């Protein structure tokens, strides 16, 4: 008998390149979330994907991504060839097509501000436009896929197979807690979720609290902010603490987060962490309903998108510490951890089918999780696609085991386990990087 319910875990599909991982493993999780921008940029592929997920009895939902229209619009712009220019090779910068389509779907306020090339601000909204945005967002999430079916002659006859999301998100904007004017954003979000709750519609409605992670430093403020959200008549909320990295969270922040989780549980509302990892699974013991993350790994997300050309290395998810780390650092620590062969590795680190298949009885094969290659045109080597694939699939299998483990054990047992692991790793010599990377374990134990 499990000690508590399993955390609900949703995989976030960031791009169709990630589909291979999600299709192989989504049956292990509660469901899948994808961004409305993905639905707009590749409707056919996204709809067929949603059919597969829904067909297997798993839940799916579309994140409306409304917050992007309250941020600097540069974040959702791209450079394209300017076909109207006389000069060959001329480029122009404009809103990405997927976001331009969303702006049209989400009603007058957003469409107008985008035309003026500026983000929306709370003063743009009155009661009518709030209702308008709520209705548009609801309709979009509930019916956009059906519209796609209807518009496609070949798909029309299958319109009754068109999946409907299991829940819909209220429109939401980022609350810039450290900036002046954050209260106005908070007020707007409260009005939006309340108006959204009032919409007539069969689909379950969820609210989103998207806020600067620094709010965790002021427990009183954070509790008050969240308490006001509880006035809205929706059964569930998703909390997005922008740029929060679970393994870097401080003791005091964990305490505040735990209090917030308990507050929602006591109010009989579901609370999900929109971008979380193992700490969120542990918080399930305090009433957190679940969390979502990407496939490699997206356990934390900044509202400000990463702009860069370097493809990040997909590191190995190291189950004893529940974090990702370089395979090199793991390999270097093996002897100090008393791991001398693959049997030891499977017993102390991971025995998932990916690890067993990759190691195949020889620890030397660990390097396959971190293989690098020099690609044409690059000056530095980068991770091979095969190595990244192995790391991602291992992560998803290991995550499932972690969720089962948390459900099976009591909070006291998990606390003891975290403490034991912290002691074991703290005793490693300081020249091993894994020693310093284990400090979060004692902090996480404070959530239990």
């Amino acid at each position, binding site marked *: 008998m499990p000690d508590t319910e399993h955390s609900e875990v949703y995989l976030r599909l960031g791009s169709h390149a990630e589909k291979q991982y999600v299709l192989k493993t989504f049956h292990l999780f509660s469901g899948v979330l994808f961004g409305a921008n993905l639905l707009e940029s590749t409707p056919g592929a996204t709809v067929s994907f949603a059919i597969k997920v829904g067909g297997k009895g798993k839940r799916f939902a579309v994140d409306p991504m409304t917050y992007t229209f309250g941020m600097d619009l540069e974040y959702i712009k791209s450079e394209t060839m300017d076909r109207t220019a006389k000069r060959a090779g001329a480029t122009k910068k404009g809103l990405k097509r997927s976001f331009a389509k969303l702006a049209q779907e989400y009603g007058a306020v957003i469409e107008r501000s985008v035309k003026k090339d500026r983000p929306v601000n709370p003063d743009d909204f009155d009661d009518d436009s709030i209702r308008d945005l709520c209705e548009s967002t609801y309709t979009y999430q509930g019916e956009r896929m059906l519209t796609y079916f209807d518009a496609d002659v070949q798909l029309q006859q299958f319109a009754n197979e068109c999946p409907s999301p299991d829940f819909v998100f209220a429109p939401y904007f980022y609350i810039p807690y450290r900036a002046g004017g954050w209260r106005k954003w908070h007020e707007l979000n409260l009005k939006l979720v309340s108006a959204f709750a009032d919409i007539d519609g069969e689909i379950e409605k969820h609210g989103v609290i998207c806020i600067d992670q620094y709010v965790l430093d002021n427990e009183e403020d954070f509790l008050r902010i969240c308490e006001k959200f509880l006035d809205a008549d929706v059964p569930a909320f998703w909390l997005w603490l922008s740029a929060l990295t679970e393994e870097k969270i401080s003791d005091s922040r964990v305490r505040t987060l735990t209090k917030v989780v308990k507050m929602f549980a006591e109010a009989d509302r579901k609370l999900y962490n929109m971008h979380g990892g193992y700490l969120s699974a542990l918080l399930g013991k305090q009433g957190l309903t679940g969390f979502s993350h990407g496939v490699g790994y997206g356990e934390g997300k900044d509202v400000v998108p990463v702009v860069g050309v370097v493809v990040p*290395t997909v590191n190995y998810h190291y189950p004893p510490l529940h974090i990702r780390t*370089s*395979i*090199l*650092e793991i*390999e*270097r620590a093996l*002897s100090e951890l008393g791991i001398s062969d693959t049997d030891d590795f499977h017993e102390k680190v991971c025995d998932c089918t990916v690890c067993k298949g990759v190691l195949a009885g020889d620890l*030397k094969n660990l*390097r396959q999780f*971190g293989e*690098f290659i020099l690609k044409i045109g690059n000056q*530095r*080597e980068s*991770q091979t696609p095969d190595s990244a694939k192995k790391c991602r699939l291992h992560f998803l299998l290991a995550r499932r085991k972690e969720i089962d483990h948390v459900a099976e054990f009591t909070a006291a047992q998990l606390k003891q386990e975290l403490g034991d692991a912290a002691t074991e790793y703290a005793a490693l*010599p*300081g*020249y*091993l*990087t894994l020693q310093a990377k284990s400090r979060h374990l004692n902090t996480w134990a404070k959530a239990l």
Partner: protein
Amino acid sequence: MMPLSKKKNSNKHVAECDLSRPVRRFLSREGYTQIVEELQFFERSIDVYGVAPGEGAKTVAVELKLRKWQKALQQAALYQLCSDYSYVAMPKNIARGLEPRAFSAAGIGILAVDTTSKAVEIVLPAILSKQAKGHYISAYKEMLGR
């Protein structure tokens, strides 16, 4: 009025590249005739890597650092996987002030580089790595031997 004087830090004008040439020369004299800089090892980059060819060929990895010795020690410890000997090289005034116990516990050596005279001195000799993996070392030996 007296002009505000800027604090001068003797290390300020020393860069890691000021350490690499003396270290290369030093290794060369020690028999490491095949030497390469910035050798990629997974996502890391080994500052200086040398092979002393011949029967019983040996390899050495050197991490160059101006200040942060703990970070240098951790990196040098990783390089023990792919080299027989692993060193941290730092400017002489810093290298001589290091607490050698943390280094000797790991078997990592310390090189002190005189950035003026370019002389390199072994403050602590490295111990033959027990972590060295043949599959990494042989690949580098072969690559540098070409």
